[in-house]
């Protein structure tokens, strides 16, 4: 028999039993839809985590001053005094594939406005800090190179600090006191909220690094240099170059310990990605179970259909249908159910994923892989669960089948 005929016969048989066909498909629709929706939620979680790590600074290298050894006792990391502002300038000038270099110092202070005070961390930073941390200024302006050169007493404050010191009123243009020195507030940062590590990212005061080192904290060394590499695949190369350059500048010969440390965020990223991949797999496999149940539903209905159509099978066999013809007819029928169910399921799944991201505050990411995979899986299920009923039909004895009432 011609393949086309089998498909037409199958579709006609499905149309003859519309309600039953729809109910059978429903199993596959829900299965495929659930897989797509669940995986897209999982992928959404993954993207959210990746984004929040990236907002710490994507492609970031962090140079910290080392932990020096004093009489054999290691001091706290970053307490070394060998990392200088010049090192940051040198890195920027000599190493390629770097977007931004942002050295900074930090220390906790009590910040005062009139009768309000607040304990927060004061960061001495350069203008590039804004790019590297993806900060945006809500009102006012950010610290400029000019502010750094002239060691201006200006400050950009985070949203938490602004609300605690100024309440509802606009802080821009007003003065705050840090360590009893007046600083003019030139800008307020847009809120970034909690970080993925549970830290309030809005609880900070930013001042020019030169002001911080020379006028506030009396430091000659810096604590960290944040480096943004132009692309993720260059991170390892740049990291090595930075290490070599700093060793040269600090005159460290091979066997001696470095007095600095260079780290990157890829390991955090990897851990997070692994975790979220596990979540995605878990959600996907739970959903896949419903797809399997849908497949069993197809098998069940096909069995009923074969019994119900015993006489039809008998007639077809009497008229010359071979084993293969009947087998193909029923197999195609179950595959058609699962393909149509699969296609509708893709629509439902994508729709559900979009609805989740619209209604819930969830990000969902629809990717092609789960769509293709669950579709192929549903076709496979149609095939697998169709084989047994189709074989049963094809093996019927024509005489018995014709006699069947």
């Amino acid at each position, binding site marked *: 028999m011609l393949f086309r005929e089998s498909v037409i016969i199958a579709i006609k048989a499905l149309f003859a039993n519309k309600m039953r066909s729809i109910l059978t498909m429903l199993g596959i629709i829900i299965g495929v839809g659930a897989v797509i929706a669940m995986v897209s939620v999982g992928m959404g979680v993954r993207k959210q985590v990746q984004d929040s790590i990236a907002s710490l600074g994507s492609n970031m290298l962090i140079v910290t001053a080392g932990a020096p050894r004093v009489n054999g006792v290691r001091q706290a990391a970053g307490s070394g005094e060998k990392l200088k502002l010049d090192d940051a300038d040198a890195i920027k000038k000599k190493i390629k594939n770097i977007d931004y270099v942002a050295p900074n110092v930090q220390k906790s202070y009590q910040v005062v406005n009139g009768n309000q005070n607040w304990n927060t961390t004061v960061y001495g930073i350069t203008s590039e800090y804004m790019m590297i941390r993806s900060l945006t200024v809500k009102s006012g302006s950010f610290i400029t190179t000019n502010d750094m050169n002239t060691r201006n007493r200006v400050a950009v404050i985070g949203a938490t600090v602004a609300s605690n010191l100024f309440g509802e009123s606009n802080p821009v243009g007003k003065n705050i006191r840090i360590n009893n020195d007046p600083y003019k507030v030139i800008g307020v940062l847009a809120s970034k909220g909690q970080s993925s590590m549970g830290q309030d990212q809005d609880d900070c005061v930013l001042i020019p690094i030169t002001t911080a080192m020379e006028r506030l904290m009396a430091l000659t060394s810096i604590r960290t240099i944040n480096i943004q590499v132009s692309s993720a695949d260059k991170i390892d190369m740049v990291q090595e170059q930075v290490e070599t350059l700093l060793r040269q500048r600090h005159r460290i010969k091979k066997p001696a310990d470095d007095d600095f440390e260079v780290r990157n965020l890829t390991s955090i990223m990897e851990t997070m990605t692994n975790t979220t991949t596990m979540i995605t797999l878990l959600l996907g496999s739970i959903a896949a179970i419903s797809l399997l149940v849908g497949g069993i539903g197809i098998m069940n209905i096909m069995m009923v259909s074969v019994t119900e159509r015993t006489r039809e099978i008998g007639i077809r066999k009497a*008229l010359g249908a071979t084993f293969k013809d009947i087998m193909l007819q029923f197999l195609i029928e179950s595959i058609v159910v699962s393909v149509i169910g699969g296609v509708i399921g893709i629509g439902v799944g994508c729709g559900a994923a979009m609805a989740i991201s619209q209604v819930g505050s969830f990000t969902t990411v629809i990717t092609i892989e789960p769509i293709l995979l669950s579709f192929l899986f549903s076709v496979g299920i149609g095939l697998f669960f169709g084989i047994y009923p189709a074989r049963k039909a094809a093996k019927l004895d024509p005489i018995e089948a014709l006699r069947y009432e």
Partner: protein
Amino acid sequence: MTIELKDIKKIYQVGTQQVAALNGIDLNIKKGEFAALMGPSGSGKSTLMNILGCLDRPTEGSYKLDGAEVAHLGDDELAKTRNKKIGFVFQNFNLLSRISALENVALPLVYAGVGYKERHERAHYFLRAVGLDDRAEHQPNELSGGQRQRVAIARALVNDPSIIMADEPTGNLDTKSTREIMNIFMDLHEQGKTVILVTHEPEIAECASRQLLVRDGKITKDVGKGVKMDVV
């Protein structure tokens, strides 16, 4: 010779007992004959018809259809033989209820691998031959019993078979339709088709040119072309 049966036996195993439904049938039917197969129920008439129609295999013996041995073919070869050489007409019509009369008639051609256009042309031709071309698009349940049987006859003819097997074709029909259907069979006989008619009504059997009586798994009477001869 269209049909040559030699010492056909069909033995069923019932529990530990062996029951012979057919007990040594020898039968030749020439091309163009119109034979009526008669016999009481339990006589082996149905078993013989199933074997003649290639729906079943004999336990022993030889069956040559158009000169080719078909007694011990496999299922698929039997299916192909039925498709090419045998046209069935059943008592209860056995039309597929969800497809049109035309598609029912064309069904054997689907399994013969004939393309869509030719299928429909041939189906139309045979529907016209039984006078039902105007009902081509109707479903079987929209047709009367007589009309359904005519559709079934058109279906039996569509692949130009060697023999037409009619199993009680008028069993479910009123007198008027019975006459119509029998006229069609007699016309077919006149056109040179080989027709085998299974019936238990003597007046129906009278329409055939040869009457065969089956009893206890044997042919006990073979009356053909006005010449009576007892076989026993």
